[in-house]
């Protein structure tokens, strides 16, 4: 069952500048890390309700990444992630509802302190919607999460 928003993704051209600007807006921004192999790095803003903002930028051009194109069109909000307490069950429900949820993809991020965080992504086959299952050592109570990006109808 979905539990709420896990995080919102905000694509920016300059991560250092965005980190400063969001701090100027009164947010507590902490460094995230680098996503190995996909060209992105991030900063994070966490909230008491369990959700967080992800400020994300590219450290190298990656026109094969689904957030690259919207960043070229101005960036800003590009994606969101929803928490679930049972990703396999929700995946079955989504597939039954006509969403073509893809196979798991391994992802990881290395933090500035060297700690590596790993998770598994499931994306819409058309790359216009996706779902993610994550398990973070910094958040052991969050056993699973799913990401739903732009919910373009393709079914």
């Amino acid at each position, binding site marked *: *069952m979905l*539990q709420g928003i896990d995080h919102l993704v905000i*694509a920016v051209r300059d991560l250092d500048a965005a980190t400063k600007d*969001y701090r100027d807006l009164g947010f507590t921004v902490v460094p995230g890390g680098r996503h190995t192999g996909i060209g992105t790095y991030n900063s994070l803003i966490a909230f*008491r309700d369990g*959700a967080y903002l992800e400020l994300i930028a590219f450290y190298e051009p990656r026109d094969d990444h689904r957030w690259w194109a919207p960043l070229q069109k101005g960036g800003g909000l590009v994606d969101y992630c929803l928490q679930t307490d049972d990703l396999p069950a929700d995946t079955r429900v989504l597939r039954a509802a006509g969403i073509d949820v893809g196979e798991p993809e391994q992802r990881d991020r290395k933090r500035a302190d060297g700690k590596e965080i790993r998770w598994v992504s499931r994306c819409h086959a058309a790359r216009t919607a996706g779902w993610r299952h994550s398990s973070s050592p910094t958040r052991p109570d969050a056993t699973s999460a799913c990401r739903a990006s732009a919910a373009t*109808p393709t079914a």
Partner: protein
Amino acid sequence: MPRERSHANGVTGVGTLTVAVDDVARLRRWYAAVTKQPGADITRPDLAGAGVRFVVGPHTLDFVAPTSASSPLLAWLDTRGPSPYAATFTGGRAGALDPAKTHGARLALA
């Protein structure tokens, strides 16, 4: 997720995420299935749009399609396709955040 969760601006969490869509019925079917809720019909005069609302935990998801030629969602859908359009936060002093400071994100404290 970071342990630091307090903010000088008073924000405590995410309120409503507005997602621009071009097929409300399909989104309603998807999210009704996974949330076990029917969803509530909504109109969003501020966006010249209408759609469906789901409340998931502490958060609200509004899936909104344009209903007139004056809707800003038309241009958004044309350039970005169905995708998140705006978000509000809970806590703090109400008002929109400067889009130059948010790097293009439409964000407001509700």
